């Protein structure tokens, strides 16, 4: 019991510590693919450190929502990290609190707050980005739902610890059509939800074209640091959900000793880095979609997830 709580804490610390690294590696890989040198992989840590030491400026007209949002954005991925398998194959102490849908709602709460805060800030670009994020969000929502329903339909559960075992027992389940199609649909979702390239340009600095970035424009100092760290963790947590729950449990430990759990950290990190390379390649090979073409991108994701559902129906 006490050890399970300890592992849970380790899991959260791993997410907090490694999330900026994953983002940094992604940025670095993208620059390398575009044959530039790029910033160091530790740049996100330096940015966050620097922001923590700066003064914070808050818009005069803003309400408590603006001040509370960085904390919500920061804490929500930590909550999700308590629920999902990051390092272990077996459920840890807090895992009973929610299934994958619960985790999705917690992440959506953070999105909701950052949207409100963007409107609250009074910056004209904030509400624009917020409404665009909502547009992407409500188009992505049905896909999320169908993915989760298909997963629960295939594995007979929405609890991530039961789901991830299903893909490799027997091993041939891994190449089941519904599994492969689900993975494709979820990668498209991750790209849309974390503001990656075909949908939004994460490294763009042009306010009119921003979707995700413009929501946190008004933040400075500690607020900006928390927002940045929170969005890194959100990306990391989504990667963990994808890699550990929807792809395979490989790399997760089944052992119950502290060493075994710590040994899983580099394995999981290697998995995340592998996925980050894939995302960097995708991001470097597609162009940003026009705003109203995003509908088509997410429509394609919807059709992919529906195809997963259909093939699942046919196979059973």
């Amino acid at each position: 019991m006490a050890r399970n709580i300890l592992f849970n804490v380790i899991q959260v610390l791993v997410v907090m510590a490694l999330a900026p690294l994953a983002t940094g590696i992604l940025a670095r890989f993208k620059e390398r693919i575009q044959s530039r040198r790029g910033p160091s992989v530790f740049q996100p840590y330096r940015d966050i450190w620097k922001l923590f030491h700066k003064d914070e400026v808050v818009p005069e007209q803003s309400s408590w929502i603006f001040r509370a949002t960085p904390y919500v954005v920061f804490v929500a991925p930590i909550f999700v990290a308590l629920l999902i398998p990051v390092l272990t194959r077996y459920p840890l102490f807090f895992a009973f609190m929610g299934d994958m849908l619960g985790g999705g709602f917690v992440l959506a709460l953070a999105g909701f707050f950052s949207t409100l805060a963007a409107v609250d800030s009074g910056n004209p670009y904030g509400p624009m980005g917020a409404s665009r994020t909502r547009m992407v969000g409500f188009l992505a929502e049905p896909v999320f739902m169908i993915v989760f329903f298909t997963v629960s339909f295939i594995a007979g559960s929405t609890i991530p610890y039961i789901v991830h075992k299903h893909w490799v027992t027997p091993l041939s389940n891994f190449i089941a059509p519904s599994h492969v199609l689900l993975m494709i649909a979820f990668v498209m979702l991750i790209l849309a939800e974390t503001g990656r390239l075909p949908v939004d340009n994460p490294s763009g600095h042009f306010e009119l074209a921003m979707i995700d970035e413009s929501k946190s424009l008004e933040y400075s100092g500690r607020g900006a640091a928390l927002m940045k760290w929170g969005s890194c963790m959100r990306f990391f947590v989504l990667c963990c959900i994808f890699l550990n729950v929807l792809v395979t449990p490989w790399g997760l430990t089944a052992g119950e000793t502290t060493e075994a759990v710590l040994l899983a950290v580099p394995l999981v990190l290697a998995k995340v880095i592998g996925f980050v390379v894939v995302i960097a390649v995708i991001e470097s090979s597609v162009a940003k979609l026009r705003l109203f073409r995003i509908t088509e991108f997410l429509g394609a994701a919807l059709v992919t997830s529906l195809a997963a559902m259909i093939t699942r129906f046919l196979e059973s």
Partner: protein
Amino acid sequence: MSGSAAVLPVFEHLNGLAAGLFLLTAFALVAVRQVQACLRIFIVQSVLLAASACIQAYSQEAVHLFILGWITLVTKAVLIPWLLRRTVRREVYVRREIAQVLNIPSSLLIAVALALFAYFIASPLLAVADGPFPRVNLPIGITGLLLGAYAVTVRREAIPQVLGILAMENGAFLAGVAIAPGLPLIAELAAAFDVLIIALVMGLLTRRIHERLGTTVVGEMASLKED
């Protein structure tokens, strides 16, 4: 139907994977905006079709299905694209925005509805031809057929329409291989040759249209007649 119970789950999954990706390409053929991409997706679809035939051949130890798979690969993934590229000028392929009757999101929704419709048509048929392969391939084949027909109606450009017709044939083939694996080879050969001729004739026709009118947006040709 040699021993439907003896099929290894690996082959079942592999065939399902080929069929599932086939379904995806069928959707993509309706939704893609570029002529070039349409042709590439058609090639991928044909490769998947051939893969499905070969997987079934391997698991049922049926040599003629193997031959069939290879014929499909050669005619549909190599010869037909080559013919279409040869007969129609390059300007047609570099068009990036295909004229459509409906916009793409609503097109996709209709395509999904058609897929569900195909599933309901196929389910009574499955009572006759049950087995791990027909169960997956028959509904997806019918979906491919309907989506090909849909592409023909909704696209206004000649080449995507031709590809729609060929995709219909692909869908019919995917279903046919699974429900009647014992079809004589000569019939399949004739069908493959037929498709080749269809592609050639339609390619030449498109070329003529393009030469005469400078465009291949055939959807606008109804108004030409009236003036």
